[in-house]
């Protein structure tokens, strides 16, 4: 009954509809990308992909988003960058959620010194500038054999994403732990593990969704920043923007195309996140 009401609210939410359409479009592009362009994203073409003076070609019928500084097709590169860019953001968010949940749950339920220690750790990580931390981690991992994969970036982003999750989870877990049904379960002799898995965790699903979507959006933005700085696999939207930045007057599409992809993805996630939060809110019916 409750689930149906949430679903109804979600469907009626206008922002959610826009966000969902955007998100579906992006995922579709990422999934079937190579099939919808005849150009090879890595094909350097100095002879034909650049003007006689060496300038990138502007968008035309043949190249919907023009070419880049090496005569490569920009649309093909935006599409080719999508799976890795979105995949890394999803993986990092999943990791951050899992770790943040575990820490938050432990802190919220155990209380006392466990709570104190874990929350100090959270504050420590939060106090550290996230970008600096991510760059440090990514740079440390860069020299390893993992460098060519997206793993350094995933780990770096997860490392900066989890504290917020942990904090929210802890608050919610503490609230749930004080509920009558938890007291009842305890009184009936349930072990702490059973209490947390059977009674607390299921009631945190909503929180997970509500916080997971905006964390994903933030992670995507942070990932683009790291890409801009030269970390992570190529092509990526952030790196494309970096490479095109000097061309903003002669070939603005070099920045606009990947930039709009990033903006589109982040806006879509925020719209969906807002809608999810609204529909999970028991006090309001904003739809």
């Amino acid at each position, binding site marked *: 009954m409750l689930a149906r009401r949430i679903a109804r609210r979600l469907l009626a939410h206008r922002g959610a509809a826009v966000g969902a359409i955007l998100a579906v479009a992006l995922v579709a592009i990422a999934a079937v990308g190579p099939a919808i362009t005849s150009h090879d994203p890595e094909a350097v073409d100095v*002879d034909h992909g650049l003007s006689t*003076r060496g300038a990138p070609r502007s968008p035309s019928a043949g190249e919907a988003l023009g070419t880049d500084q090496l005569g490569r097709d920009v649309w093909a590169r935006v599409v080719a960058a999508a799976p890795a860019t979105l995949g890394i953001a999803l993986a990092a968010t999943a990791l951050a959620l899992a770790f943040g949940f575990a820490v938050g749950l432990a802190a919220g339920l155990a209380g006392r010194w466990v709570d104190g220690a874990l929350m100090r750790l959270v504050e420590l990580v939060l106090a550290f500038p996230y970008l600096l931390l991510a760059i440090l981690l990514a740079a440390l991992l860069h020299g390893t054999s993992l460098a060519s994969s997206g793993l350094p970036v995933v780990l770096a982003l997860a490392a900066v994403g989890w504290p917020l999750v942990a904090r929210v989870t802890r608050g919610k877990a503490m609230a749930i732990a004080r509920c009558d049904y938890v007291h009842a379960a305890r009184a009936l002799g349930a072990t702490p593990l059973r209490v947390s898995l059977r009674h607390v965790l299921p009631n945190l699903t909503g929180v997970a969704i509500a916080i997971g979507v905006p964390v994903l959006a933030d992670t995507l933005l942070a990932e683009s920043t790291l890409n801009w700085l030269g970390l992570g696999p190529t092509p990526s939207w952030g790196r494309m923007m970096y490479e095109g930045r000097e061309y903003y007057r*002669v070939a603005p599409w070099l920045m606009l195309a990947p930039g709009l992809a990033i903006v589109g993805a982040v806006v879509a996630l925020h719209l969906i996140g807002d809608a999810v939060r609204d529909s999970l809110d028991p006090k309001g019916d904003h739809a």
Partner: protein
Amino acid sequence: MRSAVLAIALAACSPPDHGPRWRAAGNASPRDGGTLRFATSDQVVTLDPAIEYDQISGYIVHALHDTLVGYEPGGTALVPHLAASWRVSPDGLDYTFALRDGIVFADGSPITAESFLAAFARVRAAADSPFQPFLANVASVSAPDPHALAFHLAKADASFVYVLAMPFAAPHRDGSDTTSGPFVLERWDPGVRVVLRKNTRYWDAAHVHLDAIEMAENVPRDVQFLMFERGDLDTVEGLALADYLWIQDQPAWQPFVHVRATLNSYGSRMNVRQKPFDDRRVRQALNYALDKQHSVKLLGGAAIASHGILPPGVLGRDDTLAPYPHDPAKARELLAAAGYPGGFDIEYMIIDDDEAERLAGSLQHDLGEAGVRVHITELSIAMYAAALASKDGPAFAKAGWIADYPDPASFFDGCFHTRAISDEGTTNFAFYSNPELDALLDSARAEPDPARRAALYRRAEHIVYDDAPWLWDYHQETVEVTQPYVRDYEPHPVWLRDYTHAWLDLDGDGERVTR
């Protein structure tokens, strides 16, 4: 919101007029006064001419110091500066310079032959001076009288006078940091800016028109260009390709865009001591695989394809040699003959900047067509330079050579003579050692007759063309844009920036005239 959209739409439709904001005031003769402002993307390392050996420091050191001989404005012919004249003995071993009368340092003390001896003594005494090799061939230098300087060389060297045009050979007064050039140092905030003021005691001060020169340090190239457009800089050099492409679309700017060939050669070193480059056929194959016209295009056309180390205009360049043609089939053939029918994987080291990245991307593509799979490693300039100079650095790496003076010896001896090889400080980046070439270069250096000398260097050109220790690529031209009121200025082939004789065409109040 709607009006904002409208404004953007209108801006996009209106005809672009991004020409200069100022124009020359129209003075008929050079006007004295004014400060010329420019910026560099790096910073001054040192102002000591005995140590200074980088381009940015060089701009300032050159403006601060004068030498026995110098270059004609805008050209490469040697003309008397602090020396009034000089004589060479028939055997080419003795050089005698007569100093100009009445020359003084900026502090007013006289410049005598002793001042030059002091400068050479400093270079010889400075442990970290890169200029000692330039003096290695000087058996003795003496001052027969206060206005004469006599050099005796161990071996004849036809390029010796050029060496004396390098700033390390400028006069020095012990116990003082006074200078001898057209400008004096007024202020240096390391890493921020250098301000120079006109030296009124300079022997040729009548032809120095600027009051001051101000150089800002550590300004990124794209920012420099924006500052230039705003009018915060009077000249901008080394444009990013995007800015060069943009300004070529602005007709009103064209008279003020200076494109000038300078003394360089760029390519890639192939360490001949390491596999697979120990086989000449592999080195030739890569030369056939690379399309040099791609590099030229990616530099906005401000370059020419090269067949060797000597750029056009330098004595001994063989203009009948054409760059290796782009021929991937021939490249595959040579690779197969050398035992690499399937090509090979190779690391390629470059500096991490946009231009190097772009060129490497094209090289990677071209070599890929011949079966050579290039993996690009980008390093900061300091790490790159160390790896390039080391025998253990990547065998395949971007390399370039900027000559000290416009003479073939300054290209060949540093790049391909066996003497230039050292384990951690090589300038013979390819570790190329060929006794035949060494002998040829030694006799060419000593040859006094220019025609015979040119013939010897043409033979050297053919040797390194065929042996291909480098993947020859291009000679880059310098691109500088000046404000319309900067007059009588062209980039100099040796110094690049030399504003000694430039002047600012301003109105009677010293203000810029709006277009």
